[in-house]
């Protein structure tokens, strides 16, 4: 099962729309509520990051083989020092982002806490690719194929 969502940089009125669609999808698929929450919190933080920092981006969601794989690919300034960006409290967010209730440097670390697997690669002046994987293990495994 494959889905794609476009995200516009700077459009805070729409930020969260894609994550909302992901949540509805996972609910329809009867995924465990705890896994849904961790998945959509991670997705929302990542979507807000695209809106806050990039020019545009695409979210690719694949649900199969007992896992949810979400890839957040953006075109933007990229991240110079990923290790530093992962530090809680470090942020390069604008005032506009902070006015929206974000930009405290907690997004990436919160994604890491919620994700089963997380991988981030970035190229300065090109963009960032963030991959988040969630395992659908336990009693609720509707996607094993």
């Amino acid at each position, binding site marked *: 099962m494959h889905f794609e969502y476009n995200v516009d940089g700077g459009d*805070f*009125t729409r*930020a*969260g729309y894609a*994550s*909302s669609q992901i*949540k509805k999808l996972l609910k329809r698929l009867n995924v465990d*509520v705890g896994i849904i*929450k961790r998945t*959509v*919190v991670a*997705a*929302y*933080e990542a979507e*807000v990051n695209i809106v806050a920092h990039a020019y545009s981006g695409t979210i690719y969601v694949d649900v199969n083989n007992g896992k949810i794989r979400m890839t957040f690919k953006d075109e933007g300034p990229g991240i110079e020092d990923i290790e530093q960006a992962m530090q809680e409290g470090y942020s390069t967010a604008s005032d506009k982002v902070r*006015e*929206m*209730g*974000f*930009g*405290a440097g*907690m*997004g990436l670390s*919160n994604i890491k*806490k919620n994700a089963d697997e997380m991988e981030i690669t970035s190229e300065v002046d090109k963009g960032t690719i963030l991959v988040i994987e969630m395992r659908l293990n336990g009693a609720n495994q509707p996607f094993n194929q």
Partner: protein
Amino acid sequence: MKVKDIVRTLDAVLLCGSGQEDYVIDVAFASDLMSDVLTLKHDHVLLITGLANMQTIRTAEMSDIKCVIFARNKKASKEMIELAQENEIILIECRYSVFKTCGLLFQAGVKPIY
């Protein structure tokens, strides 16, 4: 504490969520920083905030927050109310400060998360 009792205690306005007045809330969290709200592991939390924008509602949606109080007379927009209704999130507007709102609810028995 039931939603209708929260509204009465705060002399507040129930913006949306009619039909859910008997919904019971046990724990609350107050923050204007949505990143903090997104770290909460609890479900069905009452959020008290002075941040009134679309991301407040989106954060509530992602965090399974059932009820949001906008303190210090902050107003929800039509779009925010529509999004809240779509996600069955109860919205309350209150003219008191965040501090007073928290104080009154704490006194009335609503518990903090930590």
